[in-house]
């Protein structure tokens, strides 16, 4: 039915099969739509957030998908600025994943703030001392960059390419992509850092507070590094998932291996710094505040096991797997390592957000825990549904994998 829109020389499932594939994701979107309506209409009392858990599931989701979406800017940087031609085979899906993550995060933030209509005050009444202002400015600007990077990919659609003006526009845009890749790198570097800075500067919350360099707490640099360490792994995971569902190879192994190798080095470097960060914090800020490392984990469900999982099982272990050429060439181990790496970064964000707020600072205050409502899950899941829908549509209608034809010749 939609065959005139499909890319040349590749095989896609039938329209009906694609329609049924979209149904679960549309259901997630509907769930999210209802949740968003309730939150905007009735207010944030629809959530289980409270004066203790001022930041909750949505912020964890936001920070997680922004870190995972870092594959876009970093792959763009490697491809266009560092000239890693091999990565041209994976840059388009990386850009689309980045676009999904960032647009999803901004949409969630729009619901998360108590007065969404005043969202523009961030820009109008900007407080230049706030890390969150830098995050907002850079995320918004970077989403625009991602949209510009996405346009030439959309214009490669078979039908759109037939229009000469659009084809020329798309081609010219593609030519200057290095400029946008560099701009994106600059913007991303700062907002990934500021997201970390947001927590490091909370000096009155000893669990999150960090010392640092000039105005930047160590979390600033650690968040940048962790994002570029896990972003490529997330891109690999999404590509592998697409290959699984499409039942064919889409990206040459050389591109995947290169990304995995770069990720391995970055993750290893990050783990070394993170160990120093933990030690510096344990022997610096924590005793200075009159606390001990164990005092943070005395009560409730958030125990030391989270730190162990973050550092050892989801940090050092995937770093070792990805570092070993033999191991990362094994598909199962590669996927496991990528999954662990991404989980570790999400855990890191979870610790900085939820555990920071759960631990009371006043000695006579009590410990709190939190469980999200279905409305909160609905908004989070809607972003997942939106991601699957957009990526599936992009795969179906756009030639996002340049080597697909070469790797899967159609024999008729």
């Amino acid at each position, binding site marked *: 039915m939609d065959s005139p829109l499909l890319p040349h020389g590749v095989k896609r499932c039938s329209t009906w099969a694609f329609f049924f594939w979209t149904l679960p994701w549309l259901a997630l979107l509907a769930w999210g739509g209802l949740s968003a309506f309730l939150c905007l209409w009735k*207010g*944030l*009392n629809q959530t289980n*957030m*409270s*004066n*203790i*858990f*001022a*930041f909750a599931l949505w912020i964890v989701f936001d920070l997680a998908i922004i870190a995972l979406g870092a594959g876009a800017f970093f792959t763009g940087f490697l491809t266009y600025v560092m000239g890693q031609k091999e990565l041209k085979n994976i840059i388009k899906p990386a850009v689309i994943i980045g676009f999904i993550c960032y647009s999803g995060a901004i949409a969630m933030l729009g619901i*998360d*703030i*108590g*007065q969404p209509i*005043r*969202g523009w*005050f*961030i820009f*109008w*009444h*900007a*407080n230049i*001392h*706030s*890390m*969150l*202002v830098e995050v*907002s400015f850079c995320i918004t600007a970077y989403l625009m960059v991602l949209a510009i990077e996405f346009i030439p990919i959309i214009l490669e659609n078979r039908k759109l390419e037939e229009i000469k003006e659009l084809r020329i526009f798309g081609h010219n845009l593609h030519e200057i992509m290095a400029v946008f890749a560099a701009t994106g790198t600059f913007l991303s570097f700062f907002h990934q850092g500021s997201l970390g800075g*947001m927590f490091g*500067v*909370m*000096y*009155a*919350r*000893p669990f999150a507070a960090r010392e640092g360099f000039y105005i930047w707490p160590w979390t600033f640099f650690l968040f940048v590094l962790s994002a570029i360490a896990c972003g490529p792994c997330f891109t690999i995971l999404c590509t592998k998932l697409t290959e699984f569902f499409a039942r064919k190879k889409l990206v040459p192994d050389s591109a995947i291996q290169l990304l995995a190798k770069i990720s391995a080095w970055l993750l290893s470097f990050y783990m070394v710094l993170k160990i120093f960060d933990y030690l510096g914090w344990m022997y610096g800020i924590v*005793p*200075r*505040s*009159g*606390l*001990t490392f164990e*005092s943070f984990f005395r009560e409730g469900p958030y125990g030391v096991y989270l730190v162990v999982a973050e550092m050892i099982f989801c940090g050092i272990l995937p770093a070792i797997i990805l570092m070993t050429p033999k191991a990362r060439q094994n598909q199962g181990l590669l996927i496991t390592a990528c999954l662990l790496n991404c989980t570790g970064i999400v855990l890191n964000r979870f610790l900085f957000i939820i555990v*920071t*707020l759960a631990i009371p*600072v*006043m*000695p*006579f*205050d009590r410990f*709190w825990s939190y469980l999200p409502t279905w409305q909160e899950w609905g908004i989070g899941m809607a972003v997942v549904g939106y991601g699957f829908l957009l990526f599936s549509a992009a795969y179906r209608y756009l030639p996002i994998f340049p080597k697909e034809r070469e790797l899967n010749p159609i024999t008729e």
Partner: protein
Amino acid sequence: MKKSNDHGKYKYGMVIDIDKCTGCGTCMVACAAENNVAVRADQSDKERTITWMRLYKISNGKEFPHTEVSYFPRPCMHCDHHPPCVSVCVATATKLDFNTGIVSQIYTRCIGCRYCQAACPYGARYFNWWDVFPQDKGMDRYLTPEVSPRMRGVVEKCTFCHQRLMGAKTLAYAEDRQEIEEGEYVTACTEACPAQAITFGDLNNPEHEVSKLIKHPFTFRLLERIGTDPKVYYHSSRDWIRKLGDNFLPGEYTPVVNKTWAEEEWSTKPGRDEF
């Protein structure tokens, strides 16, 4: 944030005598009534109710007969120099007035991102999870005209009854005076406390009672060592209470007088305040 308010003319602050506090809760009620604090039909969900002034029940954790219980009123600490909540606000909706030391909140500018709540270690900031007042219940008749009620989706906090400062200034101006007298501007909780446990005044003015009280060895501040520099001080003759004012590693806390009420009725003897 580099500007210091040391050179500000006034620095309003408070000393709360925990030994005098009976935990009656009048301060909480007076505060809520004065400042049009939103109420809900069911106020039992303490994670989401708004209590600018909140009373904590504290205990020395000992078994009977050595058990001691006390109450810890906690308004906004109006942290000095670099309040944790001010620098983080995205929309410049909260600020430290360098001339009065009061940390204020601009409700109509707050976007409700709640970053300030995350940054405050005292839990002194509250978000409006619901629309303010139940409609058509006639509750608007009980509102204080000088204080704007807040809308859903913004953060609010104790303002040291800023409207009372405005009122006192207006009165002084009308009477052709340059300065307001001690006691002319006090917060609602100070005025309402039946035990007179709260003293309010200008910390920069050596004549004011608060300036004298903060020099007392029994006086301490909440979470002083994390560097928030609060302008709310507490006063207690009991070491276990002073110890609960901050986090201490074993052996770090040095008692002022290592005695408890239960051990000796020392604190009720004449001369307690002259220590």
